[in-house]
């Protein structure tokens, strides 16, 4: 039986020491009516060789299509060293660093992570991760409601340019606490949140305004104007950002006159493979004034009995294991291993490497949009600057086009018709630093052919201008 080391002899010795006749006797406090006889529906055990065979078959089944799909999960280069080091047993099988003296490896690494996130975001403090970007945004909203003492309203302004899944997750997590999400429309021309739409809310009580950068469409928002409006109106500014984009873009800590108060986002671009959507990690940063409202683990630097520098979990009194029903969050396990990878990733790339990667994403997406936009009927939407994603309108049904492309082993993009029906037959495309000129050319060629075959077929919805 796998992984259990006991010999029959040892079992007998142990039972003798306990004073029990059989292992079964050790379960005698459990009512007989509850005891299971056997598990019929579970398949029989497989050896490692057999499961190896099965998993290889399954992995090959899904192919490895060329990825022009982003929408919150990005295909980036991850240096080989990142996961070779991260899967060392000392990191992979370590526990949460509650016994600090026995966990200085993880703790120092997490302190370095916090330092790097502070540098990247321009904020004062970072925590040691949450589950993912969407749930991090939910925690940021909860935090803003707690931290904004002046606001009594529990109302949050949420632009439609925030990732639709994020908005859904936030709603699902905060709705039982009477927090209201007020939706802001996006500008059909620019694909951004025009600060002018906030005028109707002037003088009303909001706990916070959420500001994405870049937004779900890849478009860059007017972050300074939005941040300043929030502050002038007594609301906190919550930035939702792509950490790789921050290598090029102005960070939330420097938005507007005072900087964003809280910023969060998805850390996947920093060293986490696509892996069907997880595990990723959410990051959360804030200004010094809000540090005690921040959920999740935080590592602090201190000294030991001899005055030597060491690292430890701190501010634990806010967390569930101590504060219980009054905790800042119920979170316990976070995404430690992913943060380990992200830290090594950031150290390997450094600012120079991240800037080059980000610049390549920017450049490749432009090339992609130029190539695809040259196809008759394919129209890039939104005339504002974008980071590494763009929306394209197609002269054929988006779902059907994407299906055909997939059959040619290309993931062409995300169909936007479900979440943004007003855009018509539109897709969101992305080209990271990994996409080569050949791949882009091949995509354009295939798309042209698919459109020619399906061309002119729309779904009946007339796109509004």
């Amino acid at each position, binding site marked *: 039986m796998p992984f259990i080391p006991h010999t029959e002899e040892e079992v007998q010795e142990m039972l003798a020491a306990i004073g029990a006749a059989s292992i079964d006797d050790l379960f005698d406090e459990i009512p007989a009516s509850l005891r299971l006889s056997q598990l019929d529906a579970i398949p029989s055990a497989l050896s490692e060789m057999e499961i190896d065979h099965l998993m290889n078959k399954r992995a090959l089944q899904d192919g490895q299509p060329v990825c022009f799909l982003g929408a919150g999960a990005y295909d980036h280069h991850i240096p080989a060293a990142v996961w070779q080091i991260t899967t060392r047993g000392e990191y992979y099988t370590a526990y949460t660093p509650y016994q600090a003296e026995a966990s200085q490896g993880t703790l120092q690494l997490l302190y370095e992570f916090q330092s790097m996130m502070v540098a990247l975001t321009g904020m004062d403090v970072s925590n040691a991760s949450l589950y993912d970007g969407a749930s991090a945004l939910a925690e940021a909203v909860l935090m803003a409601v707690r931290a904004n003492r002046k606001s009594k309203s529990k109302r949050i302004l949420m632009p439609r340019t925030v990732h639709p899944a994020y908005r859904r997750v936030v709603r699902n997590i905060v709705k039982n606490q009477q927090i209201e999400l007020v939706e802001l429309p996006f500008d059909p021309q620019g694909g951004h949140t025009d600060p002018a739409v906030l005028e109707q809310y002037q003088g009303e009580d909001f706990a916070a305004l959420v500001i994405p950068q870049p937004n779900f469409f890849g478009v860059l928002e007017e972050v300074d104007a939005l941040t300043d409006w929030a502050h002038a109106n007594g609301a906190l500014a919550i930035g939702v950002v792509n950490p790789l984009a921050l290598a090029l873009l102005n960070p939330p800590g420097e938005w507007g006159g005072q900087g964003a108060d809280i910023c969060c986002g998805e850390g996947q671009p920093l060293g986490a493979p696509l892996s069907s959507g997880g595990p990723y990690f959410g990051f959360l940063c804030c200004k010094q004034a809000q540090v005690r409202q921040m959920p999740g683990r935080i590592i602090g630097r201190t000294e030991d009995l001899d005055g030597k520098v060491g690292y430890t979990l701190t501010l634990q009194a806010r967390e569930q294991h101590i504060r219980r029903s009054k905790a800042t969050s119920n979170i316990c396990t976070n995404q430690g291993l992913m943060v380990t990878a992200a830290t090594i990733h950031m150290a390997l790339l450094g600012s120079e490497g991240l800037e080059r990667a980000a610049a390549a994403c920017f*450049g490749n997406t432009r090339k992609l949009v130029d190539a695809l936009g040259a196809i008759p009927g394919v129209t890039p939407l939104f005339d504002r600057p974008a980071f590494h994603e763009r929306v394209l309108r197609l002269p054929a049904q988006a779902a059907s086009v994407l299906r055909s492309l997939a059959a040619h082993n290309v993931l062409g993009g995300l169909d936007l018709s479900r979440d943004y029906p007003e855009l018509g037959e539109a897709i969101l495309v992305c080209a990271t630093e990994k996409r080569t000129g050949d791949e882009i050319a091949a995509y354009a060629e295939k798309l042209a052919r698919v459109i020619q075959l399906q061309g002119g077929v729309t779904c009946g919805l007339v796109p509004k201008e």
Partner: protein
Amino acid sequence: MLIYEQSKTGRYAPAQSPLDKADVSGLPEQFRRKRSAALPEVSEMQAVRHYTRLSRKNFSIDTQFYPLGSCTMKYNPRACNSLASLPGLVSRHPEAPESHSQGFMACMYELQEMLREVTGMQAVSLSPAAGAQGEFAGVAMIRAYHEARGDSARCEILAPDAAHGTNPATAVMCGYKVREIPTGPDGDVDLEALKAVVGPQTAGIMLTNPSTLGVFDRKIEAIAKTVHEAGGLLYYDGANLNAILGKVRPGAMGFDVIHMNLHKTFSTPHGGGGPGAGPVGVSERLIPYLPVPMVTREDDQYRWLTEQECPESIGRLTAFAGNAGVLLRAYIYARMLGREGMPRVAEFSTLNANYMLKQLQAVGFQAAYPQRRATHEFIITLKKQAKELGVNTMDFAKRLLDYGFHAPTTYFPLLVPECLLIEPTETEDKATLDGFIDAMGRILEEAKEDPEMVKGAPYSLPVKRLDDVKAARELDLAWRPGAH
């Protein structure tokens, strides 16, 4: 030394990013960073050496015995990692079409089915990202259920005083008030106290069984009946599922919703604090509310069930499908255990725990519930030693580190003063357990002969005992250029 302190201006790892720097003049100035982010500037060799060295300062299951109660620190099979990392699996985009996802989805579907079977529930969703999120999903489903029935009077969640902190924290996140039920002196929940507080305001009760006290609550069927009769639902915190895997099913105990901790029972890696996975299982009446997405099978095709197909779902709790890579590792582990291996997990973890309990009592330690069987874990209390010798649980824990053992869980549950919650798991051999017991015996002697020495432990680690008061008073949470 921090990675920052090894930086040299202008240094980086050229092989790891595009060799040509793309033109970003198309990005207007107003959006651009004014200064580069202050990240480390080191060579690839430096980074590799630094993080490799750091790893060697950690205790880990791969290097030490780690009997942390309630954490289930069992061996993490290497195949789970290598097979979950196969290129075809690790490169799959979450939004890839079903046509290119059948292999992955087959694994998810089969995992759903295995978890369903082993817990005795009617349906399973794999999506919650960890135990606490599983708890959130569970309590949110209870809420959705009562709201759908138009029963808005139910505003309270009950939890034992010994419950893990995530339980009351979760209840509050879901808009409930928490009411604590006391535990009796024999470790079972006080049934009379429970009966006195259930009523039309009771939305449900959150229980762990075996409980956080390391014992099986023998009154579970009566508790279930009491709460159900009052119209409330039963939530099962699966943190201790390892003790009963394949032997008892939470579904049979009367639970309406359960969460499992795959990073405990199904041996996915603890990773220095996650990622975990907290799938939930439900009884018939809660099926409509399960979090999405889930996988279903139609003929021979696997399909996704999303908000579209499940309109009454409590929705999704992360952007995609939860910690998919963790779920794959759990699937591989579950296939390697099979129907034969699962009950043996419960049998041998229980054998190991009972053996340790007896042996520790033999060398002079006091069990918190001496008249009870250990389940897969048990509590000893050092109250006597703290009082008589001035050496407390924290001191014992730190001294154990010097003996090369990670300390058990300390000071949880809060109910038992000066406690150690010890869980060996089934993958440890007798010699390792004997080594631990021997060390505990020695530390007891040291505590009698030289208490000050024990109070100053640890001595053999990269640092001595750390000043956590200083850490909290003088917050230093990030390195800054020029700061140190």
